[in-house]
């Protein structure tokens, strides 16, 4: 039984009665493991403070290096897409909005979106500023949404060790699903070289009217239908293919509707993968891990360049308030 209601997974909602598979006329294969609890400890939390946000719980940050904001396919995947926010809140969110990272001294904020408002403790922060320090209890405002920033106190070593234990589960090159900045648990082994298609369930040709010319589902696939609605909506039914070519693992985009990224840069053809590379399917991030290679990719993850589109005309956000 599959249902589209991801609210159903939270305790205050009763399970849905209507099975979407019945209404579809075909069965979607939703792996419940794709929605399980995150396997890595959270390093910090963002607690929404706005009126109307009372029911949306804290947003856990499960990694030391994250892009936050709205996902917009012209730009790049984000680690935290704020899926519980309402339309008007997302409308004022940059794509991406900020880069949050942790160093020895603590957390840093880099503003990436000049058009969208960013404030720390109600003080305006611009992309022209140096990276700002973020302390526990600080109020971070992104667009029109206020969050309290709360580090959990989990040391980075513990997080790294937990991630190491996760990687130790596999003895072959594998793909690990990432969520909120860290590998969250689900993974798939790539095996001996048969190509693996990443995508979602779809009906066999002819199941629905006028679908005789649709493709057949691929033999080997990782079905990501079980992801949360906000994640899977940007994944194509046949999105990308990972294959071993001349001893080298490669990724090939298959969809013309949704983009595939490697290390947050959109790709248009087959490219080779290195261990530690980060594949982006729409807004969903997947880490390519090779057990016999180095943990981190030699190609650094790309943080988008700031482009100030407001040049030549007044910015749409209010100017910083003077204290």
């Amino acid at each position: 039984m599959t249902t589209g209601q991801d609210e159903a997974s939270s305790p205050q909602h009763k399970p849905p009665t209507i099975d979407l598979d019945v209404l579809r006329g075909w069965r979607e294969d939703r792996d419940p493991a794709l929605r399980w609890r995150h396997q890595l400890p959270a390093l910090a939390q963002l607690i929404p403070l706005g009126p109307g946000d009372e029911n949306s719980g804290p947003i856990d940050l499960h990694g030391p290096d994250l892009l936050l904001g709205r996902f917009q396919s012209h730009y790049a995947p984000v680690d935290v897409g704020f899926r519980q926010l309402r339309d008007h809140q997302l409308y004022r969110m940059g794509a991406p909005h900020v880069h949050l990272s942790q160093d020895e001294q603590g957390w840093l904020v880099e503003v990436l979106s000049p058009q969208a408002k960013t404030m720390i403790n109600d003080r305006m922060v611009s992309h022209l500023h140096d990276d700002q320090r973020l302390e526990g209890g600080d109020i971070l405002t992104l667009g029109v949404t206020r969050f309290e920033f709360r580090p959990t106190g989990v040391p980075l070593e513990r997080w790294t060790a937990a991630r190491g234990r996760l990687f130790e589960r596999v003895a072959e090159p594998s793909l690990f699903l990432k969520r909120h900045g860290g590998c969250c648990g689900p993974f798939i082994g790539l095996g001996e070289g048969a190509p693996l298609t990443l995508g979602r369930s779809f009906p066999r040709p002819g199941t629905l009217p006028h679908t005789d010319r649709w493709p057949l589902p691929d033999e080997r696939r990782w079905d990501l239908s079980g992801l949360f609605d906000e994640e899977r909506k940007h994944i194509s039914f046949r999105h990308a293919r990972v294959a071993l070519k001349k001893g080298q693992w490669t990724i090939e985009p298959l969809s013309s509707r949704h983009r595939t990224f490697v290390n947050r840069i959109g790709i248009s053809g087959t490219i080779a993968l290195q261990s530690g590379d980060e594949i982006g399917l729409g807004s969903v991030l997947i880490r390519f891990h090779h057990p016999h290679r180095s943990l981190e990719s030699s190609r650094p993850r790309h943080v988008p360049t700031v482009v100030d589109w407001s040049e030549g005309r007044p910015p749409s956000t209010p100017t910083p308030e003077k204290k």
Partner: protein
Amino acid sequence: MDTPVNSPAVTARRISTIDTAPTDCTSELIEEAGGRRFLYWRGPRRWLHQVRSLLNEGDLEAIPSLVGPLDDDQNPGLILACAGEEVGPFDLWKWRNLPNLEAVAALQVLAATVGVIHGAGFTLGGLERGQLLYCPRRRHLLLGSLHGLRPLDGERETIWRDLRLFGELAYENFLEHEYPGGHQLVTLLQEPAAMAETGIVFPGLPQLLAGCVTPYGDLAYGSTDDLLHGLGNLRTELTRPVTYRVGARSTQGNHIFRQNNQDSCAHVVVETTCGSQTMGLGFFCVADGIGGIDDGERASSLAVRTACAAFLRAWNHYDGQTLYDHPTEVARSIAQVTSQRLALDGDFNPDQNRGGTTFTGVFLAGDRLGLCHVGDSRAFLLRDGQLIPLTEDHTLAAILERLGEPTGGKDDASHRTIARFLSTGSELEWRRIDGITAEASSRLGLTNPSRRDRGIDLRPGDMVLLTSDGAHGEVDNDELRRLGRRFCDEPQGLCQAIVDQALQNIGRDNATALAVLIEAAPSSLRL
């Protein structure tokens, strides 16, 4: 004054005394100076103790609520408050003239209460009509005394003695003359010609009478569950199913820059009788295509066809009660599946299909309404001359309004920029498929959120109206209300009038209106 009578025998007026012979108990209906009515029960301590323990059992809807015991050593008693001020002795004339459906409902409430009494291990010692009260405001029969209350023995006949009165009362209500007595009725029920001559023809009634007339034989009711089942069947026969009368009109419009009609509208109505359940089901939707000329038309047409097919799959798979209990979930699920179908089309036919569509759908199950909504088409409920919007537009203007920013005038592009729609690019999340708005829910008195999921209870005479922005963009709400009053029983006329008005204004967009009138099925019964 809020405190009940402390010494009722002195300060209150006696309305009537209930016959409690041959017991030592008394029951009086009294009225205090403020007009509130109470029951005053007295009797032996052991009996009072039993009554009090029974009243703690819970759901005894047909017994007035206990206000308190009278701690008078000489004269112990109980005071019960009758909620309806008009509560009075059972009135045979009023009972005979009560609409059948209301009479059956009153008998159901009374039977349920007797069922709780039996469940608690007590019997009424033979229910008599003399111990009944009638509340005209709530249309309930109440138990005015429990003087025969005693522990149940194991006899089937003891139970039956508490149930036989239901047959008598049903007979008198349906046939409007005196109950002929058990012996004669038994004879009548064995002779079809005599039954027909007497007029015992209503389906479900002979079965009920047979269950109550004698404690012997296979047909006799041996428990309140049997009785409730019989009353339930009678009610099913009495309940008038609502039917839907649909009108729709959609036009390309006469704006010179519109080359086709990108609006689609569709509806499916299924009228079924499945076993004891007669129910109409319907799905009605309007979709306004977005995108290139052909893409918009393709997307909106695919959306309404997919949605209607999904509705029929739901009808095929689920029983009527499940659909009736979850109308909004059904509607939103249909929209979700439709959204996925569009995304599939976008993925596998990328060249032909880059559009999207708004989608507003209404699911009707009997008299229940569920809603799904995405985009800037609208759904309204026309009730008693009022126009109640059921949806909120998903436009940039609505977002800016939420942000407290200026939206420009009525003609500003933000009103035409759609913030949420069913796209062939990516499917919509469940949480972004709206149901009935909070505002409409509170206006219709659905304050409890779980109640809101159960949808709106419609009444005969209600009209549901779906419009695309080419229609409501040209005809404002005041005008819609005015037209709604004028065409209150003509859905097709209403749709024509709305679209004609849009054409009159040389509206900029395709215009579509779909209206559903809820009608009670005609009946010759006194309902």
